[in-house]
């Protein structure tokens, strides 16, 4: 039950964050669709509504950012990302512990884990944003797309390596 509540809380954060960024009525509608999918996921503990809810809420957030067209805000985006991660993980945990007696130690350990990870990621993002702001002025405009492509390739390669290692282990 506590995991379902946590998932609902994370979904609510992911719904409210785009509304705080921009307030057109269309965003509320998209957000509500995402929230509805999340609610279906919370009630049934099916995996697909949770994934669909995360994707719809992401579209909602992307639309909000696109409409505002302001300066980039890494902190808000990270909080949104953490909310999505929390939503998906708590749903998975709820699924795993469905119809089970859940020990209090598990809830405590999970909450501490989320808090620690959130703090770590927030600190990392702040450091990254500061470093990026310094480096951005030195990179020529023509080289930037190539750097972005190289970065994307690097991320793909890293994920592929991780998955292969995980499979081998």
């Amino acid at each position, binding site marked *: 039950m506590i995991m379902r509540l946590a998932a609902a809380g994370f979904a609510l954060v992911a719904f409210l964050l785009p509304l705080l960024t921009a307030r057109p009525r269309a965003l509320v509608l998209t957000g509500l669709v995402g929230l509805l999918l999340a609610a279906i996921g919370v009630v049934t503990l099916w995996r697909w509504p949770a994934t669909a809810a*995360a994707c719809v809420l992401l579209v909602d957030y992307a639309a909000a950012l696109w409409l505002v067209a302001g300066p980039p805000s890494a902190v808000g985006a990270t909080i949104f990302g953490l909310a999505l991660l929390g939503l998906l993980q708590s749903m998975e945990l709820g699924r795993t512990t469905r119809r089970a007696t859940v020990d209090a130690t598990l809830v405590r350990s999970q909450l501490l884990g989320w808090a620690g990870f959130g703090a770590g990621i927030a600190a990392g993002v702040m450091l990254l944003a500061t470093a990026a702001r310094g480096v951005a002025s030195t990179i020529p405009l023509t080289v930037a797309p190539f750097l972005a492509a190289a970065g994307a390739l690097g991320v793909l390669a890293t994920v592929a390596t991780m998955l292969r290692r995980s499979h081998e282990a």
Partner: protein
Amino acid sequence: MTWRPTPLVMTLLTVVAWAVCLAVLTARAELLFVALPLVGAMVTLNRRATVPECSASLDVSADRVFEGQTVTVTMSVHATSAVSLVVVRGPLPADTDLASGRHRAAAALRRGEAATWRYEVRCAARGAHDFGTVIVQGRDRWGLRAWERRHVAPRPVHVYPRIAPLRSLPRPAHTQTSIGDYVSPALGEGIEPGDIREFAPGDRIRQVNWRASLRLGSLHVTQRRRERNADVVLMIDTLAAAGPRHETTLDLGVRAAASLATAYLARKDRVGLINYGGTIDWVKPGSGRLQYERVADTLLKATVVFTYVTKDLGFVPPRVLPSHAIVIAVTPLLDPRFAKAALDLAARGFDVVVLAVSPVAVTRAMLKTSPLNALACRLWTLERRAALDTFRRHGLTVCEWNPSEPLERALAGVERRGLRAVAG
């Protein structure tokens, strides 16, 4: 035992890919930051972590219960190394249900820590259930990798059929030589007074009937009747059954057979059992507590095995069907082959009592109330009545039992024509 990625990995990858696509489409770098926590969680997959060591144990409060009773299952997990999430799934065999608690439990365990859970299982139906398998599933902190272990240690729990207390039992026509509860017309050692005769050399003083001696003027002794036991063979029909799950005519018949076995064994009779169906198995007559367990263990396994082959009772050894035994045939009369077998036994000189478990009431309980169903049930009842009359015409004692009534009531109404006293 190895880790395997969970479906959550695919979900996270989907959301990350979607975030990157949207970032490119909207040209907003923040969306890459959205993906950062998700990628950060997936980085843990890169770590070559060993599978945590933990052992599970299980304890069941009883290994023999009656239908409807509960057993308490205690499951424990001891973690040798820290486990972020361990889900333990205790046994819940088919035909049992949870009475209290849950058979699944989840916890986070530190190194050397142990956790214990209890739950109660109600054993609804007879049978031998295995409570020996515990499944332990583990996950890492992010739920991205999982492992599973099965701890198997056979722990059978025998669920015996419910027993109804019986006082009125069909009396056997013949008794055997061992001591029992039936008063024989033959005179000998016993408690029941039989006759008075003149004292003869060799008679014991305590046999002297002083009142009669004073009245008649010479010494007279009281003769007593012998007390004998009987051989009872319960023959249960496993050719066919009708009715809802756990309340089929076979289940009801098995309960009736168990109740009869208990009651006859309490009277010091020797009780045997024949399962007559697709396969024939038997327990040769015996007495005592151990015999009850033999009979009950065979009744546990009684199930309908369909066959076109008619089994011949000639295969049953004579020691299983002793002469002068009373044979109580427990049947719903759904298969004519059983009726033929019962008539065959009667023709061979056995004292046969047919306990007919009515399938009409149990079947009617499953059907919707409609005039057509009511008519069909009435016709079926008439057909059964005709079949039972056939038995009566052949001299068999018939006892019809409607399962909605107590078995005691059905047995109390048994009239055994031509049975004045038990022959010695």
